[in-house]
């Protein structure tokens, strides 16, 4: 009994410390994952905890479970609409990109460590894929809003490239352990089978789970458990029939998340915590497992590997994959930079260890070091690099909180919380007349809270700065209402005029009319096009918010897209006179 209690106490303490410390990392701008890793290492054999833990198979179990849950959560939160702009580039990066990265890095590793080329390539394959946990959590908590094309490409890539890396590792291990047993064809078939089975079972499983979710009546907390257990079933079953379980569970999540029903909100809330717990558990276990001093033994060469990966192998692979996809150079640069490595490489490095591959301890320790360097260097610069490379778009006005109340099988009420900003349009207004003016009859004010206490609503009630206001309003009004609550702009006339331009023009007005109004020259055949089509033609790709096109001295910026991904507002920016005066 005392052993069990000891384990439980230890687990409790580690998690407790991690939760408390997580409030710190946000302030320090360090990735949370690194913190878990450090807490694990501190508790480990060379830290203050002094716990000796070398159980690779337990770690493997924890890590597989955690990765599955993280990918499920990632899938649930990926909007199908983002696939439109990001599917092709992400799919290329997740397949060709992984192979290209591994080949370039493999040559370097073989030379650097002076090992057999197969070992070098194995090492490269281990660190070949970006990590979903790291990418999702770092992009979402970075505090900047990335351009949709870049964000979705990175997220979908990270969710979909693990199967490829796992496959490469499996192939390399087999080639090292049983050379000459299988030929290239067999590996190709294996890859196709992994992808095909993974996609098939994932989509099918997701469809069934989504249908169940919509029909079953369960206690609130059970919906998420239904999805997690169902997801794990899909994951394990797919692995057993020779498909990629990771791909399957990601796709299952995607299916469920995009068929919203009365239970989706509960599922997402619980999944939030579960995904967090998975990341914490996995990185704690990995931190415990590693012997830090061994990692430092290889420090110079591991650093060389990490920097070669970040600065040469990944950029080369990304550039190659995106060559034909019409990404802007700054977008390619950013996608290259955010090739975050995380738990997957460490987990993959355990395979060769368990299989008894020569030099496998070296592989494990180098992989570990590469991950730490990646999290430290790339992870902490996610927001800085985004601003530097100009892939950020202004934050969207959003409610502080949003609760979906399902009042019928297909009927919802959206409850939204807003905070009254300084000098906002809402400040000083009577709540009902404010709602009437901003949103019309479809919205209603449910409550106004001041210092946490409800304010009685009557004709004399006035909203003050800092009040929390709860409104019942249709989802599509959320953004417009948020604008009305946003703090007033002292030296800007409208929201983000500096980014989008002072004027807004309609997307469907003929480009020729704009050219006539300003005396601009267009290319042949462009005058008859609506402005939106002209933009897409000049961009040569699906547009995302923040895309820019210059016509003469004018700059047109995509300001807003509707739910079908069509441009509906375009910002017009005049060149500022100041640079001219400097000449």
């Amino acid at each position, binding site marked *: 009994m005392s052993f069990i209690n000891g384990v439980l106490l230890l687990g409790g303490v580690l998690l407790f410390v991690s939760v408390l410390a997580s409030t710190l990392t946000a302030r320090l701008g360090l990735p949370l994952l690194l913190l878990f890793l450090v807490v694990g290492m501190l508790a480990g054999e060379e830290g203050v905890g002094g716990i000796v833990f070398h159980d690779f198979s337990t770690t493997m179990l924890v890590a597989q479970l955690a990765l599955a849950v993280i990918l499920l959560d990632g899938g649930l939160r990926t909007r199908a609409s983002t696939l439109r702009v990001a599917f092709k580039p992400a799919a290329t990066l997740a397949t060709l990109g992984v192979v290209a990265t591994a080949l370039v890095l493999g040559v370097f590793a073989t030379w650097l460590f002076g090992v057999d080329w197969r070992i070098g390539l194995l090492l490269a394959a281990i660190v070949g894929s970006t990590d979903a946990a790291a990418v999702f959590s770092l992009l979402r908590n970075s505090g900047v809003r990335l351009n949709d094309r870049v964000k979705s490409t990175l997220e979908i890539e990270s969710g979909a490239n693990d199967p490829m890396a796992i496959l490469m590792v499996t192939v390399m291990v087999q080639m090292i352990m049983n050379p000459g047993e299988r030929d290239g064809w067999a590996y190709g078939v294996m890859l196709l089978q992994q992808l095909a089975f993974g996609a098939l079972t994932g989509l099918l499983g997701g469809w069934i789970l989504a249908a169940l979710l919509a029909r079953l009546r369960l206690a609130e907390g059970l919906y998420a458990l239904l999805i997690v257990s169902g997801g794990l079933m899909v994951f394990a079953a797919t692995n057993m029939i020779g498909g990629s379980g990771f791909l399957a569970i990601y796709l299952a999540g995607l299916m469920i998340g995009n068929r919203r029903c009365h239970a989706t909100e509960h599922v997402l809330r619980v999944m939030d915590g579960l995904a967090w717990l998975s990341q914490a558990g996995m990185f704690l276990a990995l931190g415990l497992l590693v012997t830090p001093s061994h990692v430092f033994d290889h420090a110079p060469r591991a650093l060389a590997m990490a920097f070669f990966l970040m600065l040469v192998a990944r950029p080369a692979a990304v550039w190659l994959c995106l060559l034909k996809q019409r990404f802007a150079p700054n977008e390619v640069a950013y996608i290259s930079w955010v090739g975050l490595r995380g738990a997957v490489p460490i987990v993959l490095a355990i395979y060769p260890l368990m299989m008894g591959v020569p030099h496998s301890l070296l592989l494990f320790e180098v992989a570990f070091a590469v991950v730490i360097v990646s999290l430290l260097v790339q992870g902490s610069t996610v927001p800085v690099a985004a601003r530097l490379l100009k892939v950020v778009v202004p934050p969207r006005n959003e409610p502080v909180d949003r609760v979906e109340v399902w009042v019928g099988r297909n009927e919802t009420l959206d409850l939204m919380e807003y905070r009254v900003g300084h000098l906002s*349009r809402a400040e000083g207004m009577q709540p009902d007349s404010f709602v009437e003016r*901003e949103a019309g009859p479809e919205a209603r004010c449910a409550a106004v809270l001041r210092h946490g206490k409800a304010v009685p609503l009557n004709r004399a009630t006035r909203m003050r700065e800092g009040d929390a206001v709860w409104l019942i309003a249709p989802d599509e009004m959320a953004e417009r209402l948020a*604008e*009305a609550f946003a703090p007033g*702009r*002292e*030296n*800007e*006339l*409208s*929201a983000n*005029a500096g980014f989008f331009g*002072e*004027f*807004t*023009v*309609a997307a469907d*007005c003929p480009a020729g*009319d*704009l050219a*006539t*109004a*300003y*005396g*601009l020259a267009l290319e042949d055949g462009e005058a008859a096009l609506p402005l939106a089509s002209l933009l897409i033609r000049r961009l040569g790709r699906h547009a995302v918010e923040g895309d820019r096109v210059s016509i*003469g*001295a*004018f700059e047109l910026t995509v300001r807003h897209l509707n739910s079908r991904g069509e441009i509906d507002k*375009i910002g*017009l920016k*005049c*060149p*500022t*006179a*100041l640079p*001219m*005066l*400097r000449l």
Partner: protein
Amino acid sequence: MSLIADLLPAANVVVDLEASSKKRVFEQAGLLFENNQGISRSEVFDSLFARERLGSTGLGQGIAIPHGRIKGLQEAAGAFFRLATPVQFDAPDGRPVDMLFVLLVPEQANEQHLQLLSELAQRFSDADFRERITKAADAEAIHTAFVSWGSDASDQRRAAV
């Protein structure tokens, strides 16, 4: 040197204009330009309205800069209107507009056109400047505000260089 000060004669600043809609304001603008600068009122009206069809020239915070190109115009011309009651303008922030700077430029001068617009937008972005013209007692005070802001700004620019 401010570009704006040159094209806004004191006579082209109007306060407390009574107008019930965007259309009425444009008609008033046409009338003023016809009387003061001899530009045909229908041409002014048509040009401003054609631009407005592309999207509102309202900037937010009650400000709008209607503008257009006029055939045969020699020099850019401007007029400022402060309305007695705000009119609906489809501005990005949804607020009705009560201060308008109407800008007319020669047909061939498109570089200048854009620079003028940019300078106007910059000027109206300044909260102090907006406050000053909102509170100005009469047309003359507003005219002074436009002319003097230009010199302040060019001082700042010189200082920055």
